[in-house]
């Protein structure tokens, strides 16, 4: 049986308007970027609503985004770019009463112990690290992020292999072994050839699980997860956020709660 002709014609017309208004949806990965942007902003708002953080949108220079400004969300992977008005925007989280400042980024690449770079869809980096990179020639933060969320807008279920990929990334990032005898830390900026000039933040943990226990790590999917993936996620403290588009937003709310908990305990990092 064919589609009713009037509905098919209407669908075609509406689809054309939709595509013209939202061209990013025709680009492979475009709708995934929309999911990343939504999760990033929801986490930023969750931090603001906690009452303990001053949260603002920032340009690539670090200056506040003006009221008529455009938030440039990166479409491709990148490190922290040198300070520039054309660099990607980010969200600055400033702890009220002074203390630790953090930055929330989209599609930021982190560099692992293997020297491989890993793109993380939504991640939090200490502002002192990002600022050190931004004020020089740019570069890649190293270490385990304060928050790392992988966003999957596919409707199919997440498999164990997907969880293994995430874990492999985290294993390479975690500074269980030090990059330099001088520095035992969680996150570091190590662009200079002389490690004396590196910028470090946080404490090193002796094991992977203790490293992963501090922070918010998650895979957020439009679909579900397989049971095999769930075992690894529970053992290594990776939250599974399934059905992110489901009415009621129960799963995204749980991720926000997890992030607020991480922010409350940031002084222990």
């Amino acid at each position, binding site marked *: *049986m064919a589609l009713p002709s009037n509905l098919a014609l209407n669908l075609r017309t509406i689809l054309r308007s*939709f595509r013209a*208004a939202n061209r990013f949806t025709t680009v492979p990965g475009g709708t995934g970027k929309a999911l990343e*942007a939504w999760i990033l902003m929801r986490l*930023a708002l969750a931090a603001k609503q906690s009452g303990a953080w001053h949260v603002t949108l920032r340009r690539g220079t670090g200056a506040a985004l003006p*009221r008529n400004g455009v*938030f440039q969300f990166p479409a491709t992977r990148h490190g922290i770019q040198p300070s520039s008005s054309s660099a990607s925007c980010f969200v600055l989280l400033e702890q009220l009463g002074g203390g630790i400042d953090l930055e929330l980024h989209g599609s930021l690449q982190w560099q692992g112990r293997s020297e491989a770079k890993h793109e993380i869809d939504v991640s939090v980096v200490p502002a002192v690290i990002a600022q050190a990179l931004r004020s020089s020639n740019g570069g890649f933060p190293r270490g385990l992020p304060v928050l790392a969320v992988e966003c999957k807008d596919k409707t199919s279920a997440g498999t164990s292999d997907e969880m293994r990929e995430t874990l492999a990334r985290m294993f390479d990032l975690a500074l269980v072994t030090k990059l330099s005898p001088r520095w035992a830390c969680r996150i570091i900026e190590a662009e200079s050839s002389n490690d004396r000039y590196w910028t470090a933040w946080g404490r090193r943990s002796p094991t992977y699980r203790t490293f992963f226990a501090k922070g918010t790590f998650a895979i957020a999917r439009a679909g579900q997860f397989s049971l095999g993936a769930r075992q690894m996620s529970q053992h290594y403290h990776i939250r599974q956020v399934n059905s992110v588009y489901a009415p009621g937003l129960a799963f995204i709310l749980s991720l926000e709660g997890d992030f607020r908990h991480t922010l409350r305990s940031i002084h222990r990092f």
Partner: protein
Amino acid sequence: MAISTEVIELVALLTEEGYGTLAGELLTEISLGRELPPHFAQKVDPPTEEIEDEVRRVEIPEDEQLSFACDILILRLVEPVRRLAEAERGAASLLSQEQNRPDAVSIRFSRSRDDSGPTLARAEGAGQSETADALQEILTQLRSVAI
């Protein structure tokens, strides 16, 4: 598994209107079948139970395929645009200036300065999702026909 005539027509329409990649994914998902809900099994005993890692799927009857396809299109097209519009509205409350805040901040997906390629900007106003609402409406009508 046979693909229904309506779904084949829908796939062709999507391809003609610039959604070829999504059309291919739709055909794949329907051909593979509907996923069964994951087993929220009781705690299994690792030495004696084999954990099911495979995602189980069942064939989708032809008269249910169009409805299934519409559900996927809502998740893959409508919801991302709606959530992006929501992100744009939420971003407005994060502007440092407290007075005269706009209703929404436009979010654009831009290439890094070393890459070539266009900026993925929305032509629809920041915070708006009328085109997504219209697409949801027509897909809901299609689902009703299918059922």
